[in-house]
């Protein structure tokens, strides 16, 4: 038994040597925590782009921690940051909400801005942005680029956020290509590259020629699409370098203006504990660059829809039919925000399970 304990203790000791260390100079004021690597060309990469802009434009020092799991570990990281004199913390993963609330209660002088959460504390607010309008615009580009009319969506879990993206993308594609269909494959994990590659191959085998995704990192799917000679629309960030031939475009976050606004408001003490939300018209989300496969003719159409959204047009307006062809939203009606945020249907033309 003692031998077993020693064995495990040795491993733990060796591992402890690999943990990131706080090397924050005293003037550092803003800390960022990421659930995955900041170079994933995905969710964490987009957050880190925001951090770098804050550092450059506002002249403040930042520190970041990557690969921090959503458990007690993140509380320890936040405590260490605070012990080092950091006064503003961005816990950027959804699962950091409760740990952040715990730490916030102990340190009322430190401000927390959590990404996407739905709870508040006097010194904890949240920020996020709606990306479905950009998904619609990407869908338009995909619908105009496809030759077979078959699109594929690889997503982690059937939750309202992914259903919104799938539906918005499909509606966008159908707006320029009414016959376009969308096949959905769920991988059951935000990050399982093996399954993502297999899902991409499976879809390619069946004549799907434009893939898009809602998983943590777009690299595996973009590379597999490129290898199979089909096209790909990205998510989270511009990953066109991984699919130079088949890149269409993609929906990307643009956190810099929102993060800068938050940090400025804390500096000039106008900050309030609220749920900050933005969308395309605020510039918090954007389209990635166009790839070589997108026909020129569709670009002005995309621009005009983008303008319409920026001046108040609503994406979720009827008529919208579900998979079975039943009317979910009658012509002339619009979906209220609460209904959008709890979306539980897939639109007509989507092949895929809701569970």
């Amino acid at each position, binding site marked *: 038994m003692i*031998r*077993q304990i*020693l*064995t*495990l203790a*040795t*491993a*733990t000791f*060796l*591992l402890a040597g*690999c943990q990131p260390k706080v090397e924050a100079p005293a003037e550092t004021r803003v800390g960022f925590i990421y659930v*995955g*690597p900041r*170079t*994933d*060309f995905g969710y964490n*990469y987009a957050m880190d782009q925001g951090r770098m802009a804050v550092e450059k434009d506002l002249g403040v020092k930042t520190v970041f921690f*990557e*690969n921090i799991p959503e458990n007690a570990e993140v509380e320890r990281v936040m405590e260490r940051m605070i012990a080092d004199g950091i006064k503003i913390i961005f816990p950027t993963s959804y699962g950091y909400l409760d740990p952040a609330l715990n730490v916030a209660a102990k340190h009322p002088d430190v401000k927390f801005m959590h990404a996407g959460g739905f709870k508040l504390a006097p010194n904890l607010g949240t920020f996020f942005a709606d990306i479905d309008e950009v998904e619609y615009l990407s869908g338009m580009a995909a619908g105009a680029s496809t030759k077979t009319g078959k699109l*594929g969506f690889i997503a982690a879990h*059937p939750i309202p956020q992914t259903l919104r993206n799938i539906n918005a993308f499909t509606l966008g594609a159908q707006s320029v290509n009414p016959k376009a269909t969308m*096949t*959905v*494959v*769920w991988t*059951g*994990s935000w*990050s*399982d*590259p*093996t*399954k*993502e*590659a*297999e*899902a991409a*191959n*499976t*879809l390619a*085998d*069946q004549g799907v020629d434009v893939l898009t995704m809602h998983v943590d*990192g777009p*690299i*595996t799917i973009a*590379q*597999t699409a490129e*290898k199979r000679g089909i096209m790909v629309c990205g998510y989270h960030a511009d990953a066109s*370098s*991984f699919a130079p031939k088949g890149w269409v475009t993609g929906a990307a976050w643009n956190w810099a203006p929102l993060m800068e606004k938050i940090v400025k408001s804390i500096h000039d003490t106008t900050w309030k504990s609220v749920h900050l939300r933005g969308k395309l018209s605020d510039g918090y989300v954007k389209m990635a660059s166009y790839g070589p496969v997108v026909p020129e003719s569709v670009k002005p159409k995309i621009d005009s829809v983008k303008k319409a959204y920026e001046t108040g047009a609503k994406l979720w307006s009827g008529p919208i039919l579900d998979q079975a062809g039943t009317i979910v939203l009658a012509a002339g009606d619009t979906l209220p925000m609460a209904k959008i945020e709890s979306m539980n249907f897939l639109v007509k033309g989507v*092949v*895929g*399970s809701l*569970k």
Partner: protein
Amino acid sequence: MEILEIVLAIFLSGLRAATPLLYVLLGETVTERAGIANLGVEGQMLSGACAGFAVTAVTGNPWLGLVAGAFAATLLSCVHAFLCLVVGANMFAAGVAVWVLGGGLSAFFGIPFVGKRIDGFIPPDFGALGQLPLLGTLLRTLTPTVLLGLALWAATGWFLYRTRSGLRLRAVGESADSAATMGVAVKRVKWLAILAGGAFSGLGGAALSVDQVRNWIEWMTAGRGLVAVGLVIVARWNPWLALPAALLFGVVEALTLRMQTWGVPISSYLLSTFPYLVCLAVLVWGYVRARTRGGMPRDLAQAFARTE
């Protein structure tokens, strides 16, 4: 014709998914045949995937990547061998230590390589042949790591059952005491079996990151190393059954992905348990039919009997 195409496509997808598992399965079979169970293969696979990707990214040569992957995991299996054979630690605890160690080390040393781009094995241009529906799919699937895996499968089977060294290795696993009285250097055989298991699982990890996925991300094996440990039991410690066992898992996994694209109204979560359920069913069926211990090396069975 169309049905034939679908069946072939599913089979080949299954073969692709089964290949990394096959390597690990063969390695663990060799190790367990020498009487040592290694639960650390998940960590070894991760270190192989990380080192393989890193070396491919730096040198641009995927073959060097495979070698590096095998080497990195062999180093980790040295830790396992040291703990089991020199320190005398419990093999299961030592395996778990190697698992955690491999995961942590690969996550740490892998950080600079996340988001790097590699080309892996660039497929040769098959010309008109590649355009043919059945043959084209077949040619695209038989990548170097798939072919290497099949070759190693045959080589391992031949080694264990047709060579004197293979016989010695099996003797050590059945009864180390008897093997020792026959003049077999038991510790040496066990060391080599553990190191071979490490090299195989490293190759499996590198096949995943360098050839199939061409991406590295921490913990990317997502439990496939442990699946391979389970499949050793399904294959009843027989290297010849390693391929069918890995294929069974791979093909059912490919089929469940395909079923999603057909719009089968079953929850994707339930579908993704099918590969495990089918393997479990085959395992139970095999044991009921054989009414035996199922081919577990006798000394290894002792290790289970001894655990408190």
